[in-house]
């Protein structure tokens, strides 16, 4: 078996033992959703404040993305590590064995890393996608167009997340997409009313 296949096989085994896929999907959806809504807040704040320089929106947006990424990565790493250690220790007490150097122990440690990376990357990338229009602001006639396009991208990203959730739960994809878009619209409307 090639080394790559070996690694793939190992990851599949660890996934069976530590439920990495299920937790990963949950963290991905939850944190990407958070990331998009947070960046909608940043955009609306800048729009209402009358910020007309794309560089300012990019820097506030990027710093927010990085903060969300670090928060997600660090928070998930510490939380998952603590929870899984607790579970492993409890299982070890029941089997009267130190499970750290067993397949379960290794699966636990790999799960912590994978979940932390997903938790860090998902809000960062989701928010970054929404900011893309500001990186190419020169292509738009006015800054208002850039804002509206960005908000449109945000709602589209939310719709995509909803489709993903619908696919996982094997329910109506479109219905889930609409539900997640509504959250974005509520955020935009409330921010707009606060600004007015």
């Amino acid at each position, binding site marked *: 078996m090639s080394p790559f296949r070996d690694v793939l096989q190992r990851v599949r085994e660890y996934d069976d033992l530590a439920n990495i896929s299920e937790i990963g999907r949950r963290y991905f959806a939850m944190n990407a959703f958070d990331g998009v809504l947070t960046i909608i807040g940043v955009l609306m704040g800048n729009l209402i404040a009358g910020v007309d320089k794309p560089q300012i929106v990019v820097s506030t947006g990027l710093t927010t993305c990085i903060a969300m990424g670090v928060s997600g990565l660090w928070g998930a790493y510490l939380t998952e590590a603590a929870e899984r250690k607790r579970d492993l220790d409890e299982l070890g007490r029941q089997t009267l*064995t130190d499970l750290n150097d067993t397949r379960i122990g290794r699966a636990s440690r790999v799960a912590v890393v994978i979940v932390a990376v997903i938790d860090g990357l998902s809000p960062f990338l989701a928010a970054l996608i929404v900011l893309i229009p500001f990186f190419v602001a020169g292509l738009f006639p006015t800054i208002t167009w850039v804002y509206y396009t960005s908000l449109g991208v945000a709602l589209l990203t939310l719709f995509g997340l909803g489709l993903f959730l619908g696919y996982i739960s094997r329910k109506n994809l479109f219905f889930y997409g609409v539900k997640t878009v509504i959250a974005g619209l509520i955020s935009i409307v409330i921010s707009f009313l606060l600004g007015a």
Partner: protein
Amino acid sequence: MGRVRRLVLDTLKPHEPDIIEVSERLSELPGISAVNISIYEMDRKVENAKITVEGENISYSHVLAIIEEMGGAVHSIDEVVAGKMIIDDAVTPQD
């Protein structure tokens, strides 16, 4: 040195990895021809398994290493058969 031909172990293991995987790993060891694992008690997180291993030349240390790698623990060695062939325990009037 005599060859161990049958081992019966009383073990405690977590539910995962399951007994299919444990038996596959054990059966791949050199000197082992067959593996039988049965669960006789189950808890919320762990299960008691009777592991029977037969072969031409069983290495207990290798079997133990696999069981421990899978997160299990050997509670007791319930039966051993060693020598040139496999024999069962003799029936006595006391039985």
